[in-house]
């Protein structure tokens, strides 16, 4: 029974921690499946968190309870536009994609804090007044055990994250666009000879990843941190990248991995209260996602095979 108690009190928290990771990880799947490595996820999340918070603070009075949803949308759009920079560098200018990603991370943090200081006079913004609130789903929350676990005291945004990953799976595996995207990431020359524009597909994929990472960053900011500062996003982007790999570059796999990482994170928070875990030092739970990713990559937990052309700029006419 103790396990069920544990799960009951933890599930809402798990979903709460994993929602930002799910969004960002799906974004990562899009970008990497098209052959563009996106280490810049962290920076794109920073951009999302920043623009989400700024929009929320500025327009809270005008839009009332609608504000967080609009903030989310704005954050996605801003990050999507911002990610074009990565696309230009990685696709058009054939830059080293990892380096360009690192530059994205630095620029995002620099711009975010620079503007925060400009507009709010200090290193972090005020707390927002219109965050997301937890809700219980009517009727469903009355179901014994499951109702308590999955449908009460929860952010709707978590369901949306899960819906998005199912949608991403549909787009990538059941539509012509998805097939093209994947083919560009596996063998760009073959795709090109079949009349698919490698450049166009990769641009779209990177922008989608920017949009989703923006949603992820804003979700984190609007549910967990409630303001923006230099340390708001610290590693969630890289953790999402880990989720992409752990989930073997598959949207549903990435979602599963993100939920698992959320689980590990919340265990490190609430684990104290449960006798089975009380003796385990916190640090093991905190580093678990990272260790597992390395093990997954090393092939101890099933082989993680990256898209063939991942990280390689496509130059027409080269073999």
């Amino acid at each position, binding site marked *: 029974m103790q396990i069920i108690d544990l799960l009951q009190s933890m599930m809402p928290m798990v979903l709460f921690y994993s929602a930002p990771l799910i969004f960002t990880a799906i974004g990562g799947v899009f970008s990497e499946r098209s052959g563009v490595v996106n280490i810049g996820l962290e920076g794109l999340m920073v951009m999302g968190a920043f623009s989400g918070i700024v929009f929320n603070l500025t327009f809270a009075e005008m839009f009332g309870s609608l504000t967080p949803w609009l903030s989310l949308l704005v954050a996605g759009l801003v990050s999507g536009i911002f990610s074009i920079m990565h696309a230009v560098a990685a696709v058009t*200018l054939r830059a080293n994609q990892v380096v360009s990603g690192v530059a994205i991370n630095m620029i995002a943090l620099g711009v975010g804090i620079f503007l925060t200081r400009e507009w709010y006079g200090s290193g972090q913004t005020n707390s927002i007044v219109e965050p997301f609130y937890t809700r219980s789903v009517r009727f469903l929350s009355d179901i014994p055990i499951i109702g308590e676990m999955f449908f009460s005291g929860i952010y709707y945004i978590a369901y949306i994250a899960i819906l998005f990953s199912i949608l991403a799976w549909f787009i990538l595996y059941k539509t012509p666009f998805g097939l093209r995207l994947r083919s560009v990431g596996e063998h760009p020359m073959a795709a090109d000879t079949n009349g698919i524009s490698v450049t166009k597909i990769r641009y779209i994929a990177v922008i989608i990843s920017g949009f989703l990472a923006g949603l992820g960053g804003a979700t984190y900011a609007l549910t967990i941190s409630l303001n923006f500062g230099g340390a708001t996003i610290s590693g969630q982007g890289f953790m999402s990248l880990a989720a992409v790999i752990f989930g073997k570059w598959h949207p549903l796999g990435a979602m599963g991995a993100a939920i698992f990482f959320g689980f590990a994170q919340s265990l490190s928070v609430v684990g104290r209260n449960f006798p089975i875990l009380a003796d385990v030092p916190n640090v093991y739970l905190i580093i678990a996602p*990272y260790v597992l990713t390395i093990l997954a990559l090393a092939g101890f937990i099933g082989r993680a095979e990256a898209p063939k052309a991942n990280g390689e700029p496509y130059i027409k006419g080269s073999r």
Partner: protein
Amino acid sequence: MFSNRTFNLIVPIFSVLLGFLVGAIVMLAFGYSPIEGYRALWNGAFGNAYYLGETIRQSIPLMLTGLAIAFAFRSGLFNIGAEGQVFVGWLAAVWLGIVVDLPTIIHLPLAILVAGLAGALWALIPGLLKATRGVHEVVVTIMMNYIALHLSNHIIRAYLLESGSRTSRINESASLRTEGLTTLFGGSQIHWGFIIAFIAAIIMWFLLERTTYGYELRAVGYNKHAAHYAGINVKRNIIMAMMISGLFAGLAGAMEGLGTFGSMHTHASFSNLGFDGIAVALLGANTAIGSVISAFLFGALKVGSLSMPPISGVPSELVEIIIAVIIFFVASSYMIRWIVLRFKKEEK
């Protein structure tokens, strides 16, 4: 036409100029005077002995992480894990500095050596995985960074905590700082680590350019398969390159532990030394001398930026933007090449 060597000079110079240009535009856009801003930056980096000392102090670990990343790059590896290796080296150096009591002549070299070894061992894991299982080193090293961050925090809290969030000070015999040097530079935090950074740069240059071993490493970096065909042991070279790279990063940690701070504190997030090292290595075209020069530039930028808010009102984060833009342009050197060639053509 330009030779490759000229391009290797043009690209970084162009990128730095573009970086400063973007910085000036940002300042103008927010109603600051770029001249005032850059003057504050310059004075804050070189204005007097104190600032110069601080600039040198900031450059020392950047040189070492820059060398670490440049060395890995030359052998075809991307060691994004310098960050974690810095933490491990830092912790090892501080630990040895606290628990051991020896005369300086043994204690100091020992602490530095152990820090280097700790960094090398931390880099051994991604090196091994890359060599034996073909796992991409970038992702593994990113994960290793977080493991290092959280583990070192845990170890400090559990075993070494003195007060608040830092360890007790290292014994004087392991310190890189001396009274004389501090007074010479107006009480700044400068320490003798710059000698170690220079030695490391010379070793790297010698190793890569003047030994068979370095030749093999570069061959592996250019083309793994050709190197293998020529009878070079690719796996061994990958592991060694990663370890030497980690050693340099570990030394950078020792500089922080034995020089700048004399202790280690718990970190909420990364020190950014490793990530800035990427910028240093790239701007320095992955050479030893280039890394030394660009580390000095970034050190000056970082230290100078601190004087910008009080004097010119410009937030110091502007420098982060400038550095990021510089890397962005260096990474996109294809564009600079294209522009330069275009100009050449039109002249004809």
